[in-house]
């Protein structure tokens, strides 16, 4: 079975927002509709300071709170395990926005519906379609996309090598792993 997932190496992230704008272009999003959000943490005191940039996007949880709270079934988990919003079913109640622990769901200010990362890089991964996704556009190669059930793919090898983990532990069975 294919179980798509992603690795995000925050040690390489410079917080440049290229992934956000590339994603907007690839997916034709509105200027204020971003599937990737960022947290930036500063630690230490001057001059011994460190800074961490953390990009967050839909974790495509196997135990997805957005899916369980959605009253119309618009948010659902597709056959390939990708959490998907059926735009024809969404009423825009925003319950999923409130329920998502990662706050990565956005309201489309034009339709009122809710949207989020669609793991669009699948097309690139499966048949090499040229895209400007967060994975391919990142100038420092922060992200790796792949099949979590394929032990030979780069994603799984890199997760094992770096001991990457979901950002908030096991709470939602997230399929996005982080190196921090």
């Amino acid at each position, binding site marked *: 079975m294919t179980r798509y997932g992603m690795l995000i190496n925050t040690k390489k992230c410079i917080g440049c927002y290229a992934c956000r704008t590339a994603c907007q272009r690839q997916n034709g999003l509105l200027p204020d509709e971003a599937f990737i959000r960022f947290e930036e*943490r500063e630690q230490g005191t001057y001059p011994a300071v460190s800074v961490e940039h953390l990009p967050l996007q839909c974790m495509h949880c196997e135990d997805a709170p957005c899916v369980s709270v959605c009253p*119309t079934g618009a948010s659902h988990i597709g056959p390939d395990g990708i959490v998907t919003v059926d735009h024809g079913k969404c009423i825009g109640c925003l319950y999923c926005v409130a329920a998502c622990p990662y706050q990565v769901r956005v309201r489309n200010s034009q339709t*009122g519906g809710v949207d989020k990362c669609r793991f669009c890089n699948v097309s690139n991964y499966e048949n090499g379609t040229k895209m400007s996704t967060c994975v391919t556009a990142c100038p420092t190669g922060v992200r790796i996309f792949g099949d979590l059930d394929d032990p030979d793919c780069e994603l799984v090898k890199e997760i094992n090598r770096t001991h990457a983990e979901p950002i908030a532990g096991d709470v939602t069975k997230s399929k996005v792993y982080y190196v921090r």
Partner: protein
Amino acid sequence: MSYEPIWSGIIACYLFLAGLGGGAFITSAFIRWRHPEAVRMRVYGHIIAPVTVIIGLVLLMFDATAGLHNPLRFALLLSNFGSVMTWGVVFLGLFVIVSVIVAVLDLLHKHIPVVLDIVGSVLGVCVAVYTGCLLGVCKTFPLWNNALLPILFLVSAVSTGMASVLVAAIIRHPEEFNRVGVLKKFHFCLPIIELVLIASLCFITYQDTSGAGAASVAKMIAGEYAPAFWVLLILVGLVLPTALETRMLFFSSREFEESRKAHWISFASDAGVLIGGFVLRLLILLAALPITMVVPWV
């Protein structure tokens, strides 16, 4: 880091009106049981209940913009029984049906089967509790994600429901208002319970390990919402009604209690309860901050 609340005024109205409707129905049932002579007040309660809930539902539909543009999508609301909102739709739907039937029967001076009163009251409780659970299952918000909130919303719902019936009585039928002593005593207790629940909610939420709870409480009681919290919710919504009712119930002569002046004092107290009920929901919606991944709220 700034945070834009997900829901605000319209949803606060909806939560408030849904609770108020449920509370009003319960009030009517209570009046029928303990004050059968206060017929008018009972009718008011029975009218207020469906009307407010329906207004609330319409507001909810307005807030769900994508649904508003494509109304047929609302038909899908019953497709996921794992969702609290779906259960809410069930409760609200049944409640509206029952309360409308009861209101019609009452207006036509037909007998209302007691079983309808009981079913309606149970549904009223469900609706009120549901408004709390709706928020409560959002694990990301410590201010919501606790078992106190549904109780607080239930108490507030009954309190505002009673206040609405009492206000109507003061304006239209003061003579009945004078005769519902048990109801008033009961009504008197509720803001005190609410005060205790709000204090507990703040204390417990403040201890949340993520920091988001503390930040939410701070935002509510000491931050940008502090004036609304202390003046509108605590003072106008809880302390003032308690103080006024204490005077009316325990330190006034029977004559004064039945004077028009006293009625207006009660009116002020009940209006305070209604204001407080709305502000409570608004603040709970606006002040709640989600748990962040790495950057603590300051």
